[in-house]
């Protein structure tokens, strides 16, 4: 088991200390995370893998501020967010985190550009500003001309690119991608991964990717494996190590 012991002077965007999460089902305590410690420096590209039930989804939910830990601390960009109110968490999700989901999670019967604009609506950005930003991101994702299309008129790869544009629209420093290629064929999967790699390398966005596919995990510089609610391995992906 090879521990990542790198010491660099990059700021940690994510730092979790002894993170525990216990669910209660009919009064029976079911531990999902049993004490996780992790530091992710800014600009990293990290894969989180593990079998289902390993706790990786629970961990992602906490990292994404969709859930709060039962015990332990989660420090996001220097702020302890372990015990914030739901509204404060919503604000953090809005400003600091971009989500990419397996099933894209675009609003149905809502055009591509409006889907991309959505986070900005909750950030009280003006309509002009919203459209400008959304437009430029859709262009960047190679979707110029598709901005008025509804999700059901787009292919899976195109939908996921709309979702990436949406994740980027508030200029977050972290993108959480939960099985982003799970619903895509392999060719499209590689396209999406290429985009994520480019975002990481060219824009310096920290990317945390959850996947159970080894070839997808291999795009990351660092691969963390969960099992039974703890990290069992944390390795540097030799081929992708950032200089």
């Amino acid at each position: 088991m090879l521990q990542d012991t790198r010491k660099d002077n990059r700021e940690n965007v994510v730092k979790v200390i002894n993170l525990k999460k216990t669910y209660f089902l009919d009064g029976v305590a079911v531990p999902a995370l049993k004490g996780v410690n992790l530091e992710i420096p800014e600009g990293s590209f990290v894969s989180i893998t593990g079998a289902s039930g390993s706790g990786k989804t629970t961990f992602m939910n906490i990292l994404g501020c969709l859930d709060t830990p039962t015990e332990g601390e989660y420090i996001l960009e220097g702020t302890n967010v372990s015990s914030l109110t739901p509204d404060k968490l919503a604000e953090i999700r809005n400003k600091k985190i971009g989500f990419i989901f397996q099933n894209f999670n675009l609003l149905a019967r809502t055009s591509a550009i409006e889907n991309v604009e959505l986070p900005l609506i909750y950030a009280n950005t003006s309509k002009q500003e919203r459209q400008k930003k959304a437009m430029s991101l859709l262009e960047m994702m190679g979707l110029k001309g598709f901005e008025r299309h509804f999700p059901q008129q787009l292919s899976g790869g195109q939908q996921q690119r709309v979702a990436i544009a949406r994740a980027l629209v508030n200029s977050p420093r972290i993108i959480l991608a939960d099985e982003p290629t799970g619903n895509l064929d392999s060719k499209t999967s590689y396209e999406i991964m290429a985009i994520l790699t480019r975002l990481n390398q060219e824009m310096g966005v920290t990317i945390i990717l959850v996947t159970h596919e080894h070839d997808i995990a291999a795009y990351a510089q660092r691969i963390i494996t969960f099992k039974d609610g703890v990290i069992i391995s944390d390795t540097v992906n030799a081929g992708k190590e950032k200089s």
Partner: protein
Amino acid sequence: MNLSEAFKVSTRAIYKNKLRSILTGLGIIIGIAAVVALVSIGQGVSKKITNQIEALGSNLLIVFPGSTSMGGIHGGFGSVNTLMPSDAVAIANQVPDALYVSPGVRWIGQTVFQNQNWSTTVMGVGSSFPMIRDWPVAEGNFFDKEDVDASANVCAIGQVVKEQLFGGIDPIGKIIKIKNIPFKVVAVMAPKGTAGFGQDQDDMILAPYTTIQKKLLGIDYLNFIFVKAISSSAINTAQQEIEALLRQRHNISSKADDDFTIRNVTDMLSAVMSITNLLTIFLGSIASISLLVGGIGIMNIMLVSVTERTREIGIRMAVGAKRRDILLQFLLEAVTLSTIGGIIGIILGSILSLTASSFIKVPITVNIFPIIIAFIFSFAVGVFFGLYPATKASKLNPIEALRYE
């Protein structure tokens, strides 16, 4: 998220589900239309009856023979013959608040002019009757005190009688026969319209009460005494003075009941008003039930909508929607639905009541008060029935909502 953005999101959701929105709104439309229409009709009926009573004449007091006291067994008014012409004279002379006094007797039967005949009411009255009833003469001159004293065979006819007996002929100076007794028409009264309780006042012949008493009825007592008080503020004192005077004249001991009844228009008005107001409230309440059903319809659809759009709520929460934002979105959707429904309902209800007014011949005016109430009500229904579904939506757990299929 600011209010205008939330409003846009809500209206878009309404627009995207056109059929559902229309059907949901229909509940409110029908409810509000029913409230507006029924309240307007109720108010129209109330106004009509009020107008008719007011048409009896302002500051009018009517004395009937007989008592209507509560408790015990008494004959209804009009059933005893205690009111005499001398009572009317006494009132005129001794009650300072009485401006005009007219005795009254009534006969109902056939009247004939040449080959035309018409069954109508013949009222025997005094010469001051037009002043008492605020009823001007349209043609000719009303009979005077000398005609009354002389029991002259003269009469004044109402507009309906003129039309039925004379058609296009000028009736002034013509002779009509009442119970085979010839009467000379000296005046035609101006149109007055239907009095309360369905009696058409224009369907009437007025003649000196002395003539009617002696030649038609063969009686010496009166059916009514009409009194006009000097002002509306004097009505109550006039009533008390008349009561005291008549008790004294009829030798009624202090413990016994009156053997007459005095009614004034104000009392009748307030009695009728309380009934018609009750009618309006009753109609409004029935209509409100349909509004309530409409509100429950909104709540039902909003609950379905929240369940159906759980995923959407999850997505919105994931990208930064606060609980308040979600609450506002669904609440605004419910309120917008109910308010638009309310506006359409108000328009529909107004059209309905105006249409109804031509059918039931009640002058219905759609006034602003029930419209404002209806509007506020439809808004309140949206808030009340939208709050629960919206709160439910805002309290969803984002993780579960995102996973919802």
